[in-house]
């Protein structure tokens, strides 16, 4: 089956990211395909490229990137939720006159319409919220 995940919890604030990553690993191990993880509301903080957690704690950002590198899972971030929280890729940073950017590939800023598309394209969409 084709799966999509919707993550609405910020990393290190709620269990949502951990639950989603654990579910992702399990569904892939069972032979399913994880098409995309869509980050919405405070979930967009998962895309912050500068996160630097203590070395003895799970590195959630790296875990998301591994899903993309190893399984081709898209990491889509709601652009409206991201911009108002200071999460901008290089293009948006330039457009808004900001000195640096906080989002980069494999995360991609997309519109909410992409979430609707994802919901229609996959067999199962599972939400992990704070």
């Amino acid at each position, binding site marked *: *089956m084709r*799966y999509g995940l919707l993550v609405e919890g910020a990393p290190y604030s709620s*269990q949502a990211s951990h*639950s989603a990553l*654990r*579910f992702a*690993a*399990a*569904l892939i*191990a*069972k032979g*399913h395909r994880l098409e995309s993880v869509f980050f919405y509301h405070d979930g967009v903080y998962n895309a912050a490229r500068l996160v630097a957690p203590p070395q003895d704690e799970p590195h959630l950002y790296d875990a998301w990137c591994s899903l993309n590198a190893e399984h081709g899972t898209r990491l889509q971030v709601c652009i409206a939720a991201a911009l108002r929280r200071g999460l901008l890729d290089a293009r948006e940073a330039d457009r808004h006159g900001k000195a640096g950017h906080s989002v980069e590939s494999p995360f991609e800023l997309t519109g909410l319409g992409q979430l609707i598309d994802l919901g229609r394209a996959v067999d*199962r*969409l*599972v*939400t*992990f*919220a*704070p």
Partner: protein
Amino acid sequence: MILHILNRPPSSSLAYRDALVAMGSEDRLLLIEDGVLGAMTAQVRHFQAIDGRLFALREDLNARGLLGQCDASVQVVDVDGFVTLTEEADKTVSWF
């Protein structure tokens, strides 16, 4: 059949009421994260209406030291069982 997923316990949130009202006669409810507290005998009475269709996630029970303290009416599944529940359902709805 819809799989409903609840991550809050009856003792701290009324989200379970919305879930129960929305559930169809064949639907299932999976308790995850802090929601697994609802599987304890002291709280499980809130889910009497869906007897036999209540599940709790093993990993989240274990993380809270509650594995083995679930009420006998609750079916404990691990994360693989969570995936299976989503396979068997037509879709999922999360309550929080």
